[in-house]
């Protein structure tokens, strides 16, 4: 927690306040992200945890302005990177941010590489877009980067097509591509979901190593609490397009404050302690089209109050750097 206090004195690298993303479709408007706040400090690793449809991927794509244009509608009170607003940035300047300032690693390495292009061409694209390096220097840099991410025999492998790599190797290539522009912030969107368990550990280890070597900040999006425990400093729990709880990683596991986080943790099998039945969360996540006006978790929440149905809870500080968005803490205060 010493790092934490150090970070607080600095300006946040990425600051988001009141981010709202909605999609217009023929049948109506779907709200995917409903007002989230988050901050990433330089060099910090933030984990965003949530189940499918909680809005974690969409909010990251919104940061880079990568959502399909006419359908997606993005608004925010603040969306700043290094103090500069990313909202309404001209397309060309936005392009320079992507890859060079903020890079992204996608979920499925099987589809995130163009099957018709050699790895060399796809990697070179990053440097061609952001630097004036000569073809030779670009190739050299790419080979070095492949070596760094642990691709054996990079001189030869760089001229291979994506289908000639295994899934884990492709994810290494994608990480190498993301790191080529030496970004200040790396967004990894479920980088291990599509991989075998053994490969997952290797890739996580690689990401952690790269983050430390490159002194980057990182947002790790995942639905796997185990991944979070290993890599990140701070965790944001999302559900139904909203933040439920924000806490330092150990606090999430030791002292979860939000009923949703508690429910999530009781879904996990434990290696220590006695055997107990896993508790699934009853019910289904809210649909984007008809969202409850109050807390999105209210219909499934075992501790729901009357107020939860009507009003969205405000953040309550329950510990150092530990914030919970739950009406239960309003009650505690009043009691």
């Amino acid at each position, binding site marked *: 927690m010493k790092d934490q206090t150090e970070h607080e004195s600095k300006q946040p690298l990425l600051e988001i306040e009141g981010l709202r993303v909605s999609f217009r479709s023929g049948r109506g408007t779907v709200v995917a992200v409903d007002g989230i706040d988050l901050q990433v400090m330089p060099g910090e690793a933030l984990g965003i945890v949530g189940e499918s449809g909680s809005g974690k991927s969409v909010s990251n*794509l919104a940061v*880079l302005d*990568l959502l399909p*244009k*006419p359908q997606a509608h993005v608004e925010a009170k603040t969306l700043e990177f290094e103090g500069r607003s990313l909202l309404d940035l001209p*397309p060309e300047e936005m*392009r*320079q*941010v*992507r*890859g*060079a300032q903020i*890079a*992204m690693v*996608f*979920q*499925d390495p099987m*589809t*995130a*590489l*163009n*099957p*018709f*292009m050699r790895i060399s*061409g*796809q990697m070179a*694209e*990053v440097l061609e*877009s*952001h630097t004036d390096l000569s073809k030779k220097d670009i190739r050299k840099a790419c080979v070095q980067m492949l070596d760094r991410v642990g691709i054996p025999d990079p001189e030869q492998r760089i001229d291979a*097509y994506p*289908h*000639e790599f295994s899934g884990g190797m492709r994810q290494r290539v*994608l990480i190498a*591509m*993301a790191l*080529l*522009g030496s970004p200040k912030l790396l967004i990894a969107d479920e980088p291990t979901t599509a991989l075998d368990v053994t490969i997952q550990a290797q890739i996580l280890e690689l990401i952690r190593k790269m983050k430390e070597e490159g002194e980057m900040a990182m947002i790790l999006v995942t639905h796997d609490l185990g991944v979070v425990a290993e890599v990140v400093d701070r965790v944001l729990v999302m559900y139904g397009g909203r933040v439920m709880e924000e806490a330092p990683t150990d606090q999430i596991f030791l002292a979860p404050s939000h009923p949703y986080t508690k429910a999530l943790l009781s879904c996990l099998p434990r290696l220590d302690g006695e055997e107990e039945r896993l508790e699934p969360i009853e019910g289904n996540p809210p649909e984007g089209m008809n969202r409850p006006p109050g807390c999105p978790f209210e219909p499934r929440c075992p501790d729901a109050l009357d107020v939860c149905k009507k009003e969205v809870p405000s953040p309550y500080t329950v510990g150092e750097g530990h914030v919970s968005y739950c009406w239960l803490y309003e009650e505690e205060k009043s009691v």
Partner: protein
Amino acid sequence: MGPGVWFNVWLGILGMLALASVGAPWISQHVTGFHPNETHSHMAAMAPGVEDVPLEYRQYDGDPAVFDWIDADGSGWIECTVGTSGSSSTASCPELDVLPSRFRFFRFLFSDFDGGTDSSEMADGRLTLEEYPQNDQEIEPAYRGLNLSGSERFHGLDEDGNGWLDPSEVNRQTRAYRLRTAQLIAFDTDGDGKISRDEFPGAPRTATFLLGTDGQGRDLFTRMLFGARISLLVGLLATLISLLIGVSLGALSGYLGGAFDRGLMAIVNVLYGLPFLLVVILILVWFGRSMTHLFLALGAVQWLTICRVVRGQVLSIRQEEYVVAAEALGASPLRVIGVHVLRNVMGPVLAYGSLMVPAVMQEEAFLSYLGLGIQAPDPSWGTLLAEGVRRIEDSWWLIVYPAAVFVITVLALYVVGDGIRDRIDPRQSMERT
């Protein structure tokens, strides 16, 4: 045989077709010997394989023995000189000038010598060695010194070697009389003024109507060569034009979306509703019938489908994660559309384009059949098929050969197009190796 072998076979066929159509003028000049529009009225509607003697040889059937008869002094070559008088050149072959007297000698050979000079024997139509003049003293002074008398000459004339000459054996020699100086001098290939035995053609160079002739005595094979030239050209150019329009508009429509997309698709749908033939006919009537207008008209109609195909592909490829990934790493829109999107659209575009070439060729054939396409006398496969259909009852070859080549071409284009589409996908070529 794997699929690769068949691909190569069809690629070879297509290559040969392309070569034949490109080299059609050369082939018609040096191999077939016919011009595609040259009529041989005496050879109308002849079945495949008949021969015709080219004009310059028609006076002479090329018997090598004729050489000896012209070579009056027995020197082994015939002297011909080309001189210039004023602006025009004149040629003369002195030995040809004595041919008339030699001809006359043979003409009267039987009346003069059959039965002996002293009429001691009966004239029996057979000229024996005894009756034949033994030396120049026995013949009239006009024929002396022309190497006509003697037993050696007799045996040269007696081709069947039965010991006597009959009129037909003698008459054979008179054919050389019809040779003209201009024809003779044409044989002097090295231009040294002497025609040697080697230069003298041993046999007339006849040209064969390989696949027969059409109703006007034109060589079908040569016309098919030139037809392939025109048909393939129309097919390729019209396809290129429609690919150019279709791919660029389709890609823009899919990438830009919005009002541009809706407007363009509305136009495409309206054009789809119009009968395509009507549009082509309008263009051809308005701008005039010519080959350029024909493939412009065909290309202008064909782009609709390719435009839709490309738009759909671009729409789906835009959603692919690697396109978003490229954007996320800062690739410019032009790069994304040019490198990532269009590259992945090429598969279906090539597959469709390879099918469009034969389709356009069929449309060209159809329009030419109606008289709107290629104009007579120029051949295209359409006009050839049209004539073939008209004469199907009496000249089967006129429909069978053009149709067979047409079918083979369409098939080859289909197989090769399919093969190329497979080959440009690195994943599939991996499976093949």
